C-alpha cells in the first residue's frame, strides 16, 4: 500500500477517535456540573481541557454554553470536534479510492451534519441529544469500516491509529484525574465522590463493563486497574496496546520485505510493562510517572511507524 495512503488512513482514524473522545468527555463534564457539590465548574472545565491535552484550549469564561459550543464547533481550535472531523474527512478524501463507498458516505454525512445550521440549532436547544447523535455517527462509521472494508493493510493502519490515539487519550485522562480521584481530600464516601468516579468511567464508556467485572462497588484502585490492565475491554490501555501489536504483526505478514524490529520491540516492551505488573505495584510506585511513561511510549511508537512505513529514506529502500 502507498505510504501516503497508509498515513492518511492512520490519521483519519486518529482524528475520529479524538473527536469521539472530546464528545464523550464534554458530555460527561457537563453532566457532572449539574450537581453543585464537589469540584467547582471552573475546576472541572480546566480538568476537561487538561485531559484533552491542551490546558488552555478554551479558556474558562463562565458561560458554559458558549464554551461548549466553541469546543464543538470552532474549527480553528485543535481539540474541537469540528476540527477533528474536518481532519478525518480531509484525510479520507485523499484516499477515497481506498475506503469503501459506505465508509465515505458515512463520514461525509457526519461532516455535513457538523456544518449544517440545523445541527448548531440543535446544540443550542438540546446539547445532550446533539452530542449523542454525533457519537452515533462515529460508531456507525466504525461499524461500517469493520464490515465493508477489506481487512488488509489499510484496515490495519486504521486500527493502529484508533488504538494509539485511544491509549494516549486514556493515559492522559488518568494522569489528569489521578491527583483528584485517587487521593481525595475527604476519604469518606459521599455521593459526590461516587458521581466523580462514574464520570471517569463514562469518559471511557466503561461504567457498565466495570460493573460486570467488579460489581457497582466503585473504588479508585479498581477503576485504575480496570482502565489500565484489563485484557478484554476495548478502552483499557493493555487491550489497546495488544491491538497495536496485532495490527503491526498483520501489516508485517502482508508485506514482509522488511521487519520493523525496533517498532515491534517498543510495542512489546509497553505490552510487557502493562501485562506483567499488578495494580498494587503501580500504586506503590509513582503512579503519575507510570502513566506519563505510557504516553511517552505512545509518541515513540508513532514516530517509529513513520520511520518504518511513511518517511523511510529512499536509499535504504533501494538497498533492501
Amino acid at each position, binding site marked *: 500500500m*502507498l505510504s501516503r495512503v497508509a498515513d492518511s488512513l492512520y490519521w483519519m482514524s486518529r482524528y475520529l477517535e479524538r473527536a469521539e473522545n472530546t464528545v464523550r468527555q464534554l458530555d460527561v463534564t457537563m453532566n457532572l456540573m449539574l450537581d453543585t457539590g464537589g469540584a467547582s465548574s471552573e475546576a472541572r472545565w480546566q480538568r476537561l481541557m487538561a485531559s484533552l491535552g491542551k490546558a488552555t484550549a478554551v479558556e474558562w469564561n463562565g458561560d458554559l454554553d458558549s464554551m461548549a459550543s466553541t469546543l464543538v464547533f470552532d474549527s480553528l481550535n485543535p481539540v474541537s470536534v469540528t476540527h477533528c472531523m474536518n481532519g478525518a474527512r480531509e484525510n479520507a*478524501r*485523499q484516499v*477515497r*479510492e481506498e475506503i469503501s463507498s459506505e465508509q465515505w*458516505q458515512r463520514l*461525509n*454525512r457526519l461532516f455535513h451534519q457538523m456544518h449544517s445550521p440545523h445541527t448548531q440549532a440543535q446544540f443550542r436547544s438540546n446539547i445532550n441529544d446533539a452530542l449523542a447523535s454525533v457519537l452515533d455517527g462515529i460508531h456507525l462509521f466504525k461499524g461500517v469500516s469493520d464490515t465493508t472494508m477489506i481487512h488488509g493493510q489499510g484496515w490495519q493502519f486504521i486500527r493502529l491509529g484508533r488504538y494509539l490515539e485511544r491509549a494516549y487519550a486514556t493515559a492522559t485522562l488518568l494522569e489528569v484525574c489521578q491527583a483528584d480521584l485517587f487521593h481525595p481530600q475527604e476519604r469518606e464516601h459521599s455521593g459526590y465522590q461516587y458521581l466523580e468516579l462514574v464520570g471517569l468511567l463514562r469518559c471511557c464508556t466503561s461504567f457498565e463493563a466495570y460493573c460486570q467485572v467488579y460489581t457497582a462497588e466503585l473504588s479508585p484502585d479498581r477503576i485504575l486497574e480496570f482502565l489500565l490492565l484489563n485484557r478484554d475491554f476495548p478502552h483499557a490501555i493493555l487491550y489497546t496496546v495488544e491491538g497495536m501489536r496485532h495490527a503491526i504483526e498483520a501489516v508485517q505478514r502482508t*508485506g514482509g520485505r522488511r521487519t520493523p524490529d525496533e517498532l515491534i520491540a517498543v510495542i512489546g516492551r509497553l505490552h510487557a510493562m502493562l501485562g506483567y505488573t499488578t495494580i498494587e505495584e503501580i500504586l506503590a510506585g509513582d503512579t503519575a510517572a507510570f502513566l506519563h511513561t505510557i504516553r511517552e511510549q505512545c509518541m515513540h511508537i508513532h514516530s517509529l511507524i513513520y520511520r518504518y512505513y511513511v518517511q523511510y529514506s529512499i536509499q535504504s529502500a533501494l538497498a533492501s
Partner: protein
Amino acid sequence: MSAGQPVELETMYGDYPLDQAFDEMREAGGEVRPHYRALAETLAGLPPDELQRRKQSADLSFLTQGITFTVYGRDEGTERIFPYDLLPRIITAQEWDRIERGLTQRITALNLFLRDVYSEAKILNDRVIPRELVYSCKHYRRQMRGLQVPRNVYISVVGSDLLRLNTGEFVVLEDNLRVPSGVSYMLTNRRVMKRTFPQLFHSYGVRPIEHYAQVLLATLRSLAPEGRPEPNIVLLTPGVFNSAYFEHTYLARQMGIDLVEGRDLVTHDNVVYMRTTDGLKRVDVIYRRVDDDFSDPLIFRADSSLGCGGLFNAYRAGNVTVTNAFGTGLADDKAVYAYVPDMIRYYLDEDAILPNVKTFLLAEDKQRQHVLANLDKLVVKAVGESGGYGMLIGPQSTGRQREEFARQIEANPRNYIAQPTLDFSRAPCLIGNRLEPRHVDLRPYILFGDKVNIVPGGLTRVALEKGSLVVNSSQGGGSKDTWILDK
C-alpha cells in the same frame, strides 16, 4: 403505451420556444418525437410535486456520495455538486451507429497524425497541413520526436465534443486529447438515473455503460511495456485540490488500481517506483491526469512539484508507459482541428463521417479580414484553451469586448480561430416544476488500446442558463444521463 396516442403535456411546458434550433424531444410542429414518447407519457402521469421530490433526492445522493467538483477562487463551500438534470437525453441506435463509426475513424486518423508528426512528418512534407501551423503549436513537444510509443498509441483516452445542428446532423466541435474529464459523471448519472426512473429505464432498452472502468483497465494493460506480464498500473493525479479529483479517485477505485501523486513516485536508473509501506514498488503503466507541463520538472516546467523528476527519461527508456502520451495536445489545437477532415482523407483515404464545424484560421490574411469584419456574428476561441475560457461569443458580446479581441487577434493571429455562432440543439430540462429547452452537447469517451472502443453513451452537458451557449461546468453548466437505445 401506444405510440400513436397524443400526450397531454401542455401543462408541463414552461417557456418552450420551438424555433430553428433542433429540439431533441419535439418536432418543429410541437409533437413529441417517437423515441421520447414513453418519457413524455411518464412525466405527464406524475403528480405535480413528484419531479421536484425526485430531483431533491438525486441531489442529496450526489452530495453524500461526495460527487463534487472544486470551484476555484472561493474559500467557503469550495465543493459543489455538478448540477444534474433529471431528464435523460435519448439517442437512437441509428444515430449512435453513425457517431460510433465517425469517432472511430476520426480517432484513428488523429493517432496516425501524431505518430507521423513525431516521426517522419510526411503529412507536412506533402504540404497537406502547413508546417508552420504544427511547429508553432504550444502543445508540440520536441522531446517526443523519434520516440517509440507502445503499440504506436498516443491517445488512449479521448473525449470528443459533438453538437447537433438544426439539420439534425451531429458535428464535432473539438477533440480532447490531453486529459479529458467528465466520465465519472457519465457513470454516476446513470447510477442515480436507475434509481430515479427505474421502470422507465427498463422499458426503454438502454445500452449499458457501466463496464467503462473495466475497458479502461484493459486498455491500460494492453499498453504495458514488454516483459511485464503483471503490470503495476497507477493513476497519476495532481492531488486533492484539482477540480477533477473526485473523478480520479472514482476511476482508481473502479479499476482497483493505486491513485498516486507525484510525491509518491521516485525514479532510479530510469525506472519509476512508488513509495509503499513495504518499500519501493516498480510502476509499469501510468494513466496520467496531470498536464504535460507539470509532469516532469526536469523536462517540462521546472517550477512544478506535481509530477515526478526523471519520469520522461524512464518513459523514453521504455521502462514505463505513460498515457496519454506527451505532446498529444498538438492534435486538439483548435487551428489544427480545421485540418482533421484532410487528415482523414490523407491517412485513411475516406471522407469524414462526422463533419467539422466551419473554422476560420486567423493566421491567413483573407480569413482574418473576414472575421474581423464580422466579429459580432462569430465565435472566437483561443486555440490552446479549454473549459470555456478565452472565448468571445459575438452576438452576446459588447463593443468593447470585440475591440479587445480584435486587438489580441492582430497581435497574435495564430493563437485564435473563429467559427460561426452555432444554433445547436436543445433538450428539455426540468426548470422549477416545468420543462424548458436548454442547449446541450455530447461528449462520448473513446478508448484506444488494441483497438478503438467506445462505450455506448457519453456525457450530455447542458447550458442551464436560459439562452446560454456555454455548457462547461466551470461556467454554470450541468449534465444529463445519456441513453443510447438498443434498437
